[in-house]
């Protein structure tokens, strides 16, 4: 049995005639220790999918099984790294992580908690900024705090909702490596949602495209057989990488094109020519 299993999951917002289906026929199986990436267009319901798996929202129909039991509500076993960091602006970096540690490990002593917070912040290289507030941090630093907060809860599965979408390429690459490093070290299960195919290939074992919504559903999966640890610079010359990258992009482009053309309708333009209605000074002058 799979570690995480989604069976015919469907999610729609609203009720009755006005209801709009966002996700449909979502079937997904993730094994323990796997790193799966879901790549999709913006507005295809990626965040909804993460919210369903984390337990923030409930599916309209279908089942989500985590380790064989249905998901109901959130759990410390599934940590979420949000797209918009969602740090609490009135708390310092330390307090933001501390609140997570305190909730997850209520039995630990003050000293143990303090050590945990410090070690996770040290892991994402934020020790110098420990007493700063979120507004004093750059985007990359904020995301690192969010990563530390989620990891400090020591979740068995990490759910990532476009965690690096808003960062510049350099910071992004660095954080990708950090997340991979942590994942490999503790052998957790990870689900990454992204709109960047390269990021997906670099990080994941499998890539599954999410077809554009409404009624978004998952496409066929692409397995990535590139041995770890992967090297970003070498990856560009790797034939396997090139092959998979082209396949996925081709597939996404085809889907995207189909989606566009299905909405396209032909408009008949009226056969008209604009008429010049400006005052004709020369003719008026001649008259007088």
């Amino acid at each position, binding site marked *: 049995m799979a570690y995480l299993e989604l069976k015919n999951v469907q999610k729609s917002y609203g009720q009755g005639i006005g209801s709009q289906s966002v996700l449909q026929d979502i079937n997904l199986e993730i094994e323990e220790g796997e790193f799966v990436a879901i790549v999709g267009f913006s507005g295809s319901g990626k965040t909804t999918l993460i919210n369903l798996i*984390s337990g923030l929202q409930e599916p309209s129909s279908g089942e989500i099984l985590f380790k064989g039991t249905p998901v109901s509500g*959130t759990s410390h076993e599934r940590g*979420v790294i949000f797209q918009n960091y*969602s740090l*609490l602006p009135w708390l310092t970096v330390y307090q933001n992580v501390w609140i997570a540690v305190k909730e997850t490990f209520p039995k630990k002593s003050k000293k143990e908690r303090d050590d945990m917070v410090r070690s996770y912040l040290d892991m994402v290289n934020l020790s110098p900024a420990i007493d700063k507030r*979120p507004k004093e941090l750059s985007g990359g630093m904020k995301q690192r705090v969010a990563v530390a907060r989620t990891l400090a809860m020591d979740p068995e599965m990490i759910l990532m909702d476009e965690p690096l979408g808003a960062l510049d390429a350099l910071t992004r690459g660095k954080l990708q490596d950090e997340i991979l490093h942590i994942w490999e070290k503790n052998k957790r299960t990870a689900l990454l949602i992204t709109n960047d195919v390269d990021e997906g290939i670099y990080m994941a074992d499998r890539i599954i495209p999410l077809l554009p919504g409404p009624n978004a559903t998952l496409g066929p999966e692409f397995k990535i057989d590139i041995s770890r640890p992967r090297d970003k610079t070498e990856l560009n010359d790797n034939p396997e990488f090139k092959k998979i990258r082209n396949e996925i992009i081709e597939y996404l482009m085809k889907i995207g094109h189909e989606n566009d053309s299905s909405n396209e309708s032909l408009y008949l333009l009226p056969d008209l020519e604009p008429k010049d209605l400006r005052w004709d000074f020369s003719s008026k002058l001649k008259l007088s």
Partner: protein
Amino acid sequence: MSKKLSKSIRFIGLGFLEPLIHLIQGKETRKNLILVLKKIIAPLASFVLFMGVWQTGAQLLYNKEADYRIEKARTEQGDEAAIKMKECIISGDVSCQPNTLPSPAQVKVSFFKLIEDHKIIRQDKKDFKEKTASLNQKRIADGKEAITYTGRPSFVDQIITSIKTVFAGFLLAILIAVPIGIIIGLSETLRDSFNWLIQIFKPVSPVVWLLLVFMIVKTVTKDSNTDSAFIISFISVGLCSMWATLVNTTMGVATVDQDFLNVAKVLKLGSFQKVFKIILPSSLPLIFTGLRITLSVAWMVLIAIELLAQSPGLGSFVWEEFQNGANDSNSKIIVAMFVIGIIGFLLDRIMLTIQKLISFNKNEGN
């Protein structure tokens, strides 16, 4: 000028003097000249304009009142009386001065008079205390109440009483509005069920609140001899001014950012923790905006309420002066007007500073 100096000047609120100092030092003459014109000369010009309008207006009203008096004397008592009246007015005699809008100079004189009066009363109080000290000791030893000073309060005493009343009212407003706002904000059902009450009572005039409080407090304090005027006025001030805080607190608690609520869910915070760690901190800025409005409303209605409740303070000072009708009453009222305005401004500034200290930008966490 060193950075430290300019920073400290800005801190004490004299930042507008900075370009003048630069100009004197001969730095960037053109730029600083424009800045001086903008920040110092223009406000000064507006002040001069204000004084000019006031002075001319007061002069016109004075002349009209004087003409009327002379004319009245002529029709009632004949030409001789009219000439006498004219001479009397010109001589500046107190008995026949026209009673109208006072000029800036008169107001200034009244201001110093009030200060002088305060000094006299303070001395009087001190003397009284010294005189009765030994007697009071005896009375207390005998189990009797001490004799207290019962002379009239000075202008400064009135100001202090007013500030005390407004803070008591403000405190009452906080104690009522913030907890109720939080409770109502947390539950949509409660919000819906109490909305009519808030909407109906919010626009009720301070005067009506005063009467309502009077009805209740009068009965409650029937068998004790406490100072009910103070109680009535501070409760009325609190009830009138608490609505802004109530509405803002409710709003703030009800509209917490979904991102923060998601964090609370993912961390699995208990409901107590959720309220105190997520909902309250995130609604603090809105709560403080409400408190700021509440304090300024409290100060505004306080004067009206004191005036009606006959409770000591600036409001009753103004009313007594108006009833008094003495020669300098009008200028004393104008002095009180400026004092009320300046204190209101200072209170608002204090709240603004606190608000700035605790507020955060909603997007800072993102």
